[in-house]
């Protein structure tokens, strides 16, 4: 036997021994899968599959020893040992998980699966799945009530909140939220659940947006109040200030000046980022019987912190930490200074003041790429920020307000073209003063729901509604006027000149970004049966679609767009031309408002209000029943 062969046999023997030992550990500690990832040593299996984890949310176990991390691209939930900073367990959940809730007794975890319309119930000890619950469409935010008997689920696609009875494992009621609810939070006293809507009300494109925070009374299980937050979009996480001086909520947002020409970005202040300070009526945070909202910005005058997203208070309430997901930053806000600032400056001024951050932000800390949720340890000594596009957690030393380190969650270390492109999509550094990233106006690769004065210097001219980036690879040309033949043109010189006011992306970066945008998939259709069969109303609507020759412009073979421009009589007094690119109809129901101007708040209005001359199809002879059927068919696409 050669020495080489002997060595190999010894290695094999050692490997076998290790496997036996590992099996024994698994059997002993009852963990279904021992996950070997640790800082700097990603698992070989993950690397070979180039399967990024893309962690989006995290929660602490009640004893503070573990962090539960939701990974949306890996369809998994991880358990991270806080002391060893290692991933110690992993369980597969449904498709596109978004959030996790820990039961009051700490024994059960609930993970929302956005693309499966389910919640996975996980046994926290064995890290195995127990049950799966059906929810509404697109479940994202989850929280239990104080008793642990009811789970609240924000359904982003259904625009409502499901209440699941965890004893019977079924939905008991559904409450309307209106517009893409994402984040939920149980109040510290357990009496309320707060729901943050990502998108604003469907309103006039001539008015600033209005967003809404929904307050649910957990005793009555009814909507108690809808708190309007004017002038802002993209309400994200919700944190309640603890302690006797607390009681108020912080809700990060973006504040777009979409009625101003975006070309004025060089003058700054077009898209600011901050948070709403909400004092909810009936809580100790409110001095009056009516809820109040004050807005405060976290940007500096010459440097913006785009994509305010996660927020959490330290247990003593002295600091609030806020992530800026497109600036790769976490800002530490001194809450005493925040209180002072709120008293010093009138609320109507504060929303537009860019000098607040220097007063209230004590420290800016660098995170990994695309930081989202944040969790603070029960002892208040550490904060953990989940870095969505770095597959890592940033650890913050709270007493020192310094970054203490990074926890690598695993996943491949090499960046693929798509991953590079996605990172750029979420990076505001390419924009002048870091005012915004692509993702700022395209949250979840979709729409922000408002119309923008994009490229025309005249105030109010040629204002166009934001268009989705989902499933657009084969829908060129781009822009509402159809002037950009490809995404390279759309995202290259155009963005650099008109939007970012910077050098924009170089050739390689542009190729990466375009590759990523082309890869953005369409979410599942909720209006089409799983077997693809149409309902009777959809069948009737399909017949009308073809009888009315809708397919001439909305060509089924090419995503229901003829990929050219037509004048269908929708131009308004602010438009230079009446020719507009034919929008694709895939998932059309998921993206109101409609038309180039964003004036049509519903599909119905396209024909009842904005087709007076029958140029957008001859529809004036249709009965209301036929119109309803046509719309049901469109929803199925």
């Amino acid at each position, binding site marked *: 036997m050669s020495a080489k062969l002997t060595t190999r046999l010894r290695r094999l023997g050692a490997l076998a021994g290790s496997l036996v030992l590992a099996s024994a550990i698994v059997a002993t500690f009852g963990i279904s899968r021992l996950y070997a990832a640790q800082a700097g040593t990603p698992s070989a299996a993950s690397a070979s599959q180039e399967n990024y984890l893309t962690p989006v949310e995290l929660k602490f176990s009640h004893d503070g020893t573990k962090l539960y991390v939701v990974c949306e691209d890996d369809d998994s939930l991880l358990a991270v040992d806080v002391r060893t900073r290692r991933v110690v367990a992993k369980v597969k959940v449904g498709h596109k998980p978004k959030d996790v809730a820990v039961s009051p007794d700490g024994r059960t975890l609930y993970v929302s699966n956005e693309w499966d319309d389910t919640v996975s119930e996980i046994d926290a000890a064995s890290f195995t799945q127990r049950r799966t619950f059906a929810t509404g469409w697109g479940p994202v935010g989850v929280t239990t009530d104080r008793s642990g008997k009811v789970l609240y689920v924000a359904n982003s696609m259904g625009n409502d909140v499901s209440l699941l009875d965890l004893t019977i494992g079924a939905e008991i009621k559904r409450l*309307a939220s209106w517009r893409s609810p994402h984040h939920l939070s149980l109040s510290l006293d357990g009496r309320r659940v707060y729901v943050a809507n990502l998108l604003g009300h469907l309103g006039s494109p001539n008015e600033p947006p209005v967003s809404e925070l929904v307050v649910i009374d957990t005793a009555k299980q009814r909507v108690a109040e*809808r708190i309007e937050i004017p002038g802002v979009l993209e309400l994200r996480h919700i944190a309640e200030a603890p302690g006797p001086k607390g009681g108020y909520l912080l809700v990060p947002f973006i504040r777009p000046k979409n009625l101003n020409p975006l070309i004025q970005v060089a003058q700054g202040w077009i898209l600011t980022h901050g948070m709403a300070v909400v004092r909810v009526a009936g809580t100790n945070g409110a001095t009056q019987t009516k809820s109040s909202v004050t807005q405060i910005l976290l940007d500096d005058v010459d440097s913006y912190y785009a994509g305010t997203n996660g927020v959490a208070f330290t247990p003593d309430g002295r600091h609030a930490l806020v992530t800026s997901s497109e600036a790769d930053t976490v800002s530490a806000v001194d809450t005493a200074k925040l209180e002072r600032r709120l008293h010093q400056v009138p609320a109507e001024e504060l929303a537009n003041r860019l000098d607040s951050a220097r007063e209230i932000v004590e420290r800016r800390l660098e995170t990994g790429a695309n930081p989202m949720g944040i969790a603070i340890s029960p002892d208040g000594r550490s904060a953990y920020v989940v870095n969505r596009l770095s597959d890592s957690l940033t650890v913050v030393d709270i007493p020192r307000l310094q970054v203490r380190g990074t926890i690598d969650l695993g996943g491949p270390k090499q960046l693929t073209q798509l991953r590079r492109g996605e990172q750029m999509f979420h990076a505001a550094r390419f924009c002048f003063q870091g005012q915004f990233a692509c993702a700022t106006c395209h949250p979840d690769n979709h729409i922000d729901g408002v119309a923008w004065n994009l490229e025309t210097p005249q105030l109010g001219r040629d204002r166009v509604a934001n268009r989705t980036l989902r499933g657009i690879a084969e829908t060129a040309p781009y822009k509402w006027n159809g002037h950009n033949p490809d995404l390279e043109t759309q995202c290259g010189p155009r963005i650099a000149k008109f939007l970012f006011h910077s050098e924009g992306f170089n050739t390689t970066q542009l190729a990466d970004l375009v590759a990523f945008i082309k890869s953005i998939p369409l979410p599942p259709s909720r209006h089409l049966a799983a077997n693809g069969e149409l309902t009777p109303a959809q069948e009737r609507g399909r017949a009308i679609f073809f009888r009315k020759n809708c397919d001439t412009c909305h060509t089924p073979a090419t995503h229901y767009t003829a990929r050219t421009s037509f004048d269908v009589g929708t131009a308004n007094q602010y438009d230079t031309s009446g020719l507009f690119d034919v929008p694709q109809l895939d998932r059309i129901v998921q993206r109101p408002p409609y038309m180039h101007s964003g004036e049509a708040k519903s599909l119905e209005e396209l024909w009842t209000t904005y087709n007076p001359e029958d140029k957008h199809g001859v529809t004036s002879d249709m009965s209301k029943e036929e119109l309803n059927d046509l719309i049901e068919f469109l929803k199925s696409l």
Partner: protein
Amino acid sequence: MKSKQMWRWFLGVVGSLALLGPACAQKPPLYTHWENFTTANGMPDEKVLSVAVDGDRVWAGTENGLVLIEKGKIQKVYKPEDGLANRVVTGIAVDPASGDVWLATFGGLSRLSGGHFHNYTNLTSGLANDITYGVAIQDEYVWVATTAGTNRFNTRTGEWSIFSEKNAPIQEPWSYGIAVAEKKVYVAIWGGGILEYDIAGGYWKPYTDPDGEMEIVLFKNQGLIHIIVSNIAWNKDTQMFWASTYFGLSGYDGRNWHNYLSMDSGLASDFINAPKSRGDEVWACTDKGLSYLNFKTNTWVTYRPNAKTGRGEIVITAPDKKVTTMETSTSLAHNYILNMDFQGDDIWVATATGLSHGIRETTRESNKEGKVHEHTTASR
């Protein structure tokens, strides 16, 4: 001494029972005290078209806005400037699950949730017509009675369905009222009778007047009294629906019809705007007062204000047609009754000149309150 007192007390009780006994046997619990909400104390309009109770809250739809009454006071008046689709609120339904208040108005359908309105109109949604009269909740579905048919709105999928003469067995699309049962939905069609929708099967069944449009009842169990049906109510206790027509009251128990006319019952008038029913109680909102029928005993009670005295009048018609009248110091706001709802033992009544809160008192108190005049009417 002690035994003498005991004896007197015993005689007193027996004597009182002997006096009250006949009245107790005849009379159901009565509403002898009325509190009225009118324009004099904060109602935005004298005409109250609809009323719905949600626990401690009372919602009233008027010709000029929606009113919320709680703790005995008007708490809030909602107008179009607050977001309400239209000032004329004809129908109200509270979703028992969500607490959202759905409102049929003359400008579309409104949903009040968390203090904010969300409106659905013919132009912005699949609503058949903006003139809506009734609204009802069936699980996640909202049913709406409109002048162009009956709408069903799926709040989860956003799907709107229209049921009209084009796809349902009716000649008239003009829907006035909707009632939801466990397995059925009933629609009152003005000029088209009643439509019954089978929830599981998804099909319709019509109930019409077998004698055409004759405004008479040929025999007791003939069927629906008339095809001009103004509203409909479901009684889950007796599993019966009750339909109000402009020519009498019709009830159906699944096998037999129970028809009532003013000429041969204690019904105040054959012109009925709405029925309501629970347990053995059947209520008819007529143009000449609010009539109550104890379906089990066939005892009738009608409440109306006395135009001359301004006091309340209670007319009790016993099964043997014996009529007893009583007067009360307070009364309904008006004898033209448009709608009503229950709040525990109390009732809330929508009238032409205000909303009336009827407080039910015990029989003994009723006898103390009322000034009783008894007489028998041969025509009854």
